[in-house]
């Protein structure tokens, strides 16, 4: 394991039994490294094995094969020591419905030996101080998610594992979570963010790992993952856009208006666009290559979104 990795899994494998016998492979020899001090996105289609992977590293599910190290220690063997420095949300964590938000957090703080003052700090941090006395079962989905994030932050974690943390949050809540993740990384912590919201991941993550069918597909910094994957599109600005579209269409490009610009597709070399237009007396005011976004890369890497059977609930999820 690299010294700057907070989480590394190698050859991780997990299969669940089905109702009619047989086994469904949820994680299939997965390798993944989460660098220290960054927000690392963990991407994959539904049923690709993300949550199972998180459950394995947190000791909730036993791997059939492979190894995992978290904060430099092997897990699950060293989990009791490691989890003191880890905050985790896996799916929608459940709290005791009859307890207030404060009492739920105090119970957890009591297990970890944290002072009650830390609970108040976290309640303030996640914006639940005014509703801290109310029973958990009266909370909205967004408030439940805030409480879960608060619980994950209680131990001032070095590694924060968040599985779909934006679920149910309003824009303000999403903004707060995003800011919290950035603040934590500024303070030296690391965040592993599993999310389906690709725009969110692209906006907040420094690096990503993409998995599909339980296997590692690609990882690296966001720019590395996007690099070398030109979209084949450029945006141009010319004085006569309609004429430009006609010229480019005749030349075999795809061309359409995009606001005040023209979006040209099927471009292997932007110089050809310039040349064709110049030959007809049109000169570019601006040409901008369109970078591939994470969504297009994700879809390209994970293949068509064919329906994959969900694992049996009694045996495991994703």
């Amino acid at each position, binding site marked *: 394991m690299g010294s700057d990795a907070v989480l590394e899994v190698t050859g991780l494998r997990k299969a669940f039994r089905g109702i009619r016998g047989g086994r469904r492979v949820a994680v299939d020899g997965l390798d993944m490294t989460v660098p220290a001090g960054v927000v690392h996105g963990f991407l994959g289609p539904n049923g690709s094995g993300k949550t199972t992977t998180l459950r394995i590293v947190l000791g*909730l599910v*036993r791997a059939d094969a492979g190894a995992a190290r978290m904060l430099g220690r092997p897990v699950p063997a060293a989990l*009791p020591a490691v*989890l003191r420095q880890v905050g985790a949300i896996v799916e929608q*964590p459940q709290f005791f419905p009859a307890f207030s938000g404060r*009492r739920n957090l105090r119970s957890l703080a*009591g*297990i970890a030996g944290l002072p009650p003052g830390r609970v108040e700090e976290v309640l303030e941090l996640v914006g639940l101080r005014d509703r801290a006395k109310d029973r958990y079962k009266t909370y909205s989905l967004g408030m439940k998610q805030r409480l879960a994030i608060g619980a994950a932050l209680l131990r001032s974690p070095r590694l924060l594992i968040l599985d779909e943390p934006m679920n149910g949050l309003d824009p303000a809540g999403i903004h707060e979570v995003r800011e919290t993740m950035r603040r934590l990384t500024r303070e030296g912590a690391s965040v592993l963010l599993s999310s389906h919201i690709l725009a969110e991941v692209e906006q907040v993550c420094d690096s990503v790992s993409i998995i599909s069918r339980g296997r590692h597909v690609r990882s690296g910094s966001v720019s590395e993952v996007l690099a070398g994957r030109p979209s084949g599109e450029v945006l141009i600005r010319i004085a006569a856009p309609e004429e430009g579209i006609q010229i480019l269409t005749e030349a075999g490009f795809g061309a359409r208006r995009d606001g005040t610009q023209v979006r040209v597709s099927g471009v292997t070399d932007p110089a050809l666009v310039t040349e064709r237009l110049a030959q007809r007396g049109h000169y570019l005011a601006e040409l901008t290559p369109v970078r591939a976004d994470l969504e297009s890369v994700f879809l390209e890497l994970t293949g068509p979104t064919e329906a994959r059977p969900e694992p049996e609930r009694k045996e*495991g999820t994703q």
Partner: protein
Amino acid sequence: MRLFGVELRRLLARRLYWVTALALLGLLALIVGQVAVSSRPANAATIAAAEAESRQLAETARRDCRLHAPPEQQANCDSLVGPPTDQMILTFRFVTETEPFVVGASVMLALLGFVIGAGFVGAEWSAGTLAHLLTWEPRRLRVLAAKVAAAALGSGGTALLITAGYLGALYTVALTRGSVDGVGSGLIGSLLLLGGRGVLLTMAAAAGGAAAAALVRSTSGALGLVFGYFVAVELVLRGFFQGIGPWLVAPHATAWLMRTARVVTPGPCPTCDPRVITISMWGGAAYLGGLLLAAVLVAGLTFRRRDIT
């Protein structure tokens, strides 16, 4: 220890715990009230009233006899008397009548303990809070041990308070509306030991309920398991195979509470006399303790390996 403290506080905050404990408390209060209403002390006033009632009954009987009896039996009518006075006065006598009440309360407390223990752990599986808890304390055996211990001690404390209150209430009824004649330290000690065994039985039932719920992952499953056992094995199967009697739970629990239990089984041949097997208090304790240990061990080993999804 921190985990145990958290679990105990959570148990005491559960609605099921308070509802079941208060329901049992209400039932026992009704029983005490019924005893108080029906009991009358054997003092000069009640004895005089009972004698008057007895004389009235005797007079009524003689009058009916003279009206309806054949002539040859008329002579006997004058010899009719009323019921004895001591049978006319229903006096709650603490010395002779308290033990069955305490045994009954102990059985009800044991049932309460099982429900509390099963509900305590089963609710965690149903609500899905266990996965979150395990991201805070991944040592599963420690988690289960804390839950079992909290269920046992929480239920045991409740049983102790209820038993003490029940005994006190029965003594007060006997003192004010019955008889405490013959009450000495020996009897008090014996009743306290009986109540103590009831408390221990409640603790074992609560621990067993928690273990059963951990094994089957639901409250209703644990309750169904035990209910099914008593119906299928202790009632139906025992009806067909009486020889299994000495191996069942109920006789051992009875032996533990009552210091001894006698189980009648068929003799070795159809014409032979039935055999009577006596189970001692410590035999019952060993059986119940072994059963509880096995249940907790199986629950622990299963919980340790199970995927939490």
